[in-house]
């Protein structure tokens, strides 16, 4: 008996009870849809995280001035700066087994004016190490040179967003921007980075030499004396143990800041990469949870199919008898019911795919989550659903195949 003929019989049998078939599929539909949504959301989240890790720079660690309890009050510029440029140099120099580069940075914000345009942004005073640590390259122009850093030169490098807001399509190079009355000449434009993990626009930034920020723009004498910095960004060497590196950095800073044992840190260490990875782990946990829900649903769907197949076998006992009388072998009957069960499940899987894909896109639109649909996962789901059909259809099919022809024929 050919598969084509078996399929035709199965389709006819399912069509004869269209509503019942549809209801039977429901469990599979929901299960597969859940799987599709789960994979779409999971893949999207993973893709986004990867992009974010990339945008931050791999193996990034950050040290902020002030202890963790002070972080909320960090806005009180100057008074709470406990880190200095020397701390950054010391980390780079003394922990070279762990650290690829350590970049001190001073952060500030304000209105930037260029001609008629103005834009409110965040600016950083940085050293050349900053570009290495953040893995940030230039789209145009050049980096600060040694003399500009030492001499607090009035130069700036613009992020993509700032450049666009101030100059539109025009070329910002060699143009002058003013920040808090200080005129700066634009010498470079950063490559685009996109969004940060917290959703802020990383390209909405202006960079200047750290000396310029300290002496000319922020202009605080206390800052100037201590060579204080707001944060130190550290790029760890590839393959070093992050926990160990973190401890070394903490140890070094505590020693430099002459903190007694038992005294709280006067700085905050954050392992950005690990924070992101932790978030990825939690999204994985979420995925597993959804997978559990999906598999329960598929299981229930499979049992539903088994149930309906038993009903179908009982209802069609006489048909089985007729088929047996005209020469169907037991295995022909078994195969017919198996094909029917797996067809039921596969169609359910297909509908589930459509519902899942639609649901994913809708979810993405409503929540703004990144969604990533993959054809492979859909094919896999349909295949898996069909397998469930075969698995749960086996017992009813076996029952049908084992009916004695004469008893099946006599069945009323």
């Amino acid at each position, binding site marked *: 008996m050919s598969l*084509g003929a078996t399929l035709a019989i199965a389709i006819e049998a399912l069509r004869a009870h269209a509503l019942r078939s549809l209801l039977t599929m429901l469990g599979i539909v929901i299960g597969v849809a859940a799987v599709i949504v789960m994979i779409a959301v999971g893949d999207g989240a993973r893709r986004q995280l990867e992009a974010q890790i990339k945008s931050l720079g791999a193996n990034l660690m950050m040290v902020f001035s002030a202890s963790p309890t002070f972080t909320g009050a960090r806005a009180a510029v100057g008074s709470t700066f406990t880190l200095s440029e020397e701390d950054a140099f010391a980390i780079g120099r003394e922990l070279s087994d762990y650290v690829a580069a350590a970049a001190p940075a001073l952060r500030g914000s304000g209105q930037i004016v260029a001609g008629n345009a103005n834009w409110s942004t965040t600016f950083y005073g940085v050293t050349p190490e900053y570009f290495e640590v953040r893995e940030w390259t230039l789209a145009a122009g050049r980096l600060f040179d040694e003399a500009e850093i030492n001499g607090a030169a009035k130069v700036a490098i613009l992020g993509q967003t700032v450049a666009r807001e101030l100059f539109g399509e025009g070329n910002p190079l060699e143009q002058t921007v003013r920040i808090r009355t200080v005129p700066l000449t634009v010498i470079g434009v950063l490559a685009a980075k996109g969004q940060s993990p917290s959703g802020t626009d990383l390209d909405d930034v202006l960079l200047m030499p750290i000396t310029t920020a300290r002496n000319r723009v922020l202009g605080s004498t206390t800052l100037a004396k201590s060579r204080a910095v707001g944060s130190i960004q550290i790029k760890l060497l590839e393959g070093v143990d992050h926990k160990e590196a973190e401890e070394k950095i903490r140890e070094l800073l505590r020693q430099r800041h002459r903190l007694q044992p038992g005294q709280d840190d006067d700085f905050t260490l954050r392992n950005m990469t690990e924070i992101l990875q932790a978030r990825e782990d939690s999204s994985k946990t979420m995925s597993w949870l959804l997978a559990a829900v999906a598999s329960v649903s598929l299981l229930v769907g499979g049992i539903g199919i088994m149930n309906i197949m038993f009903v179908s076998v009982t209802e069609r006992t006489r048909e089985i008898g*007729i088929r047996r*009388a*005209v020469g*169907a072998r037991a295995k022909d009957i078994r195969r017919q019911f198996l094909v029917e069960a797996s067809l039921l499940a596969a169609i359910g899987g297909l509908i589930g795919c459509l519902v899942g894909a639609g649901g994913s896109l809708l979810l993405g639109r409503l929540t703004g989550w990144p969604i990533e649909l993959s054809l492979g996962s859909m094919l896999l789901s349909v295949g898996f659903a069909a397998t469930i059909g075969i698995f749960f259809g086996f017992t009813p099919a076996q029952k049908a195949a084992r009916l004695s022809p*004469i008893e099946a*024929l006599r069945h009323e």
Partner: protein
Amino acid sequence: MKPLIECRALAKSYRLGEKGAEIHALRGVTIDIYAGEITAIMGPSGSGKSTFMNLIGCLDTPTSGTIRIEDKDVAQLSDDGLAALRNRAIGFVFQQFNLLPRATALDNVALPLIYRGLSAHARRAHALKRLAEVGLAERAHHRPTELSGGQQQRVAIARALAAEPRLILADEPTGALDSATSIEIMALLQRLNDQGITLVLVTHEQEIAAYADRIIVFRDGRIVDDRHQARRQAAPASGDEA
């Protein structure tokens, strides 16, 4: 000449339910049926005639005794072997027609051919030919519910013919039909017999048995009479053609 069907000491007993009384449906039946004849099996209800039919139709297996069909011992055949025998050597006609209600006449006739692995195209062509033989070519795409009882039985006969069997077993083929239609069906069966198909039919109507060459009478699981007769010729189904 070897008999087409050879039964030796055939017995069949079964229980009604798990602990029910044992029923002896057949108590030792020995008989030969030769090719080319119309044999009528008669007897009151419960005499064992249907059980006998199911056994020689390979739908059921005997408790003891042997059946040889075309000189093959049926007991030696596997379940698949029995299915193949039913598919190729035996055509069944039932009192209640036993057509698939959702399938068209054509699909019903083609049913045995599915299990022979024929292509859809070959099945259709073949089935259409059989339907034409029973005079129902124009009704090929009707469902059983759209056909009269006599037409349904003719579809069933066409299905039995689809396998091109040497033997047709008919269990009360006219039991659900009025007498005029019954005679049409008998005429059709006699015509098939004239073409060389051996026919065994179960009936409890003396009038139907008159169309047979041989009458075997069952009572309480045994053969009590076995005689040959000159068969009555059924009038050709002229009213049908008109």
